């Protein structure tokens, strides 16, 4: 593994994403929406940081997943990934370079959520820790989708339903008990539950088991996708 090459991919991704509005907007949209809605809407009886937790969960299910899938599938479609592989860049170096960039960008968004939620000290660290686990899981799902897909079109057709499940199911679960029974099996619901208890955070067996099981399934799916399609 070459750090120099991983950094080269990382720097390339910074320059490229800054000029790619469709990807960039996904990282900005939810933190911005949270700032606006949190300051504009105050409903009596609403749990503290309701909108922060709601939008942070959606952000986790959406931004890293769609960002990673979009970047990889675009590189495959435009042949740039093949050129990288033929120029002595390893799949791991590429994935870490791109993944680290998206992870850091999403963590910046997480800091914005944390500031809007007025988390301080250990509460802020707990919030960022929980967010980072969710972001990492979504990144792996995005990587699996991007690797599986031959082009952006096929990536989008998989990304949208997957992203909707992980982003919206926790919100729908608030209003529907039956959905809640299914929703508790997905990592974004567990992340949502943990975020609702920031400050008095306690990891339950269910939290850890569901998140770990989701991660294991996602890693297995990524391996299958990589073996089937490869990166280039």
């Amino acid at each position, binding site marked *: 593994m070459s750090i120099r090459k991983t950094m080269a991919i990382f720097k390339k991704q910074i320059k*490229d994403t800054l000029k790619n509005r469709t990807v960039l907007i996904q990282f900005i949209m939810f933190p911005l929406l949270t700032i606006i809605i949190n300051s504009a809407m105050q409903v009596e009886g609403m749990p503290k940081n309701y909108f922060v937790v709601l939008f942070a969960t959606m952000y986790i299910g959406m931004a890293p997943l769609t960002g990673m899938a979009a970047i990889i599938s675009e590189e495959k479609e435009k042949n740039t990934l093949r*050129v990288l592989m033929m120029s002595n860049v390893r799949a791991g170096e590429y994935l870490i370079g791109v993944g680290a960039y998206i992870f850091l960008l999403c963590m910046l968004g997480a800091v914005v959520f944390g500031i809007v939620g007025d988390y301080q000290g250990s509460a802020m660290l707990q919030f960022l820790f929980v967010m980072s686990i969710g972001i990492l899981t979504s990144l792996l799902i995005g990587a699996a989708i991007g690797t599986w897909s031959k082009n952006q079109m096929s990536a989008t057709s998989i990304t949208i339903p997957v992203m909707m499940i992980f982003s919206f199911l926790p919100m729908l679960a608030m209003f529907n008990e039956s959905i809640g029974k299914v929703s508790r099996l997905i990592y974004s619901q567990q992340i949502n539950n943990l975020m609702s208890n920031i400050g008095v955070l306690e990891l339950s067996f269910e939290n850890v088991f569901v998140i770990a099981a989701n991660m294991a399934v996602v890693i297995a799916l990524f391996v299958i996708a990589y073996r089937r399609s490869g990166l280039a």
Partner: protein
Amino acid sequence: MEQKNRIVTDHIAMSFQDNVVLQDINVKIEEGEIFGLLGPSGAGKTTLIKILTGQLKQISGTAQVLGMDNRSITREGYAKIGMVLDNTGLYDRLTCWDNLALFTEIYGISKDRIKVVLNKVGLEDATKRSVHKLSKGMKQRLALARAIMHEPEILFLDEPTSGLDPATASYIHQLILEEKGKGTAIFLTTHNMEEATKLCDNVALLNKGQIVEYGYPKNICRKYNFQNKIQLLLKNGESHTLTNDSSSAELIGNYFKNNAVESIHSSEPNLETVFMEITGRRFE
């Protein structure tokens, strides 16, 4: 001086399920040699490049690239290979400079090389221009700049002038010849016969996955000169086709004595007509 083999293939064969795309491919490319793989679309040209660059594994036969088995080219090996693929593989949103800067970091070479190669391909004025604003010819020159930036020992060029205007194609030919002059072995695929005749030291004509002729282009053309005729165009507009032997010598001599000859051509076929002669197919 002893020439070094850069690429040697031995009875390479490839198929996708039951569809045989390459069979019994034997080529040898030395340093400073331009080798042209010619054939119509679907003949198997790109497949052979993919095999030689380790992107595909052949079903039988062996290939040595820079002395390494093509199925296990090392990282150091890839650093000695440059490529211009059928699709340029450039980052559209990045500038010419940024596209090349990425590869200087990957190869661990000085950024000074960026300016050198951009000047070389005539893109010095487009340094800060985004790739999506470049013309097709400029993109192709940028892809070539990227391929030669790390001074590779082998250059794979897959249809490098396809769809380009004659001036840009000629510019790229000049760059290819410069690389040859430095000792780079160049593997070129094309279906442009004129280009192959102009550039290549050796060509292989590929038809349905098989090499049907191999050698120096002019020698191949001479070999298939079955008509062996001489065509004369006289200043009075008359055209004569004569056999290319001693029986025509007196007549041709008289035309020259009378200063009547406008032009004279031998009837040697070009590579395209040779291909048609052998396969009964046209280049598409």
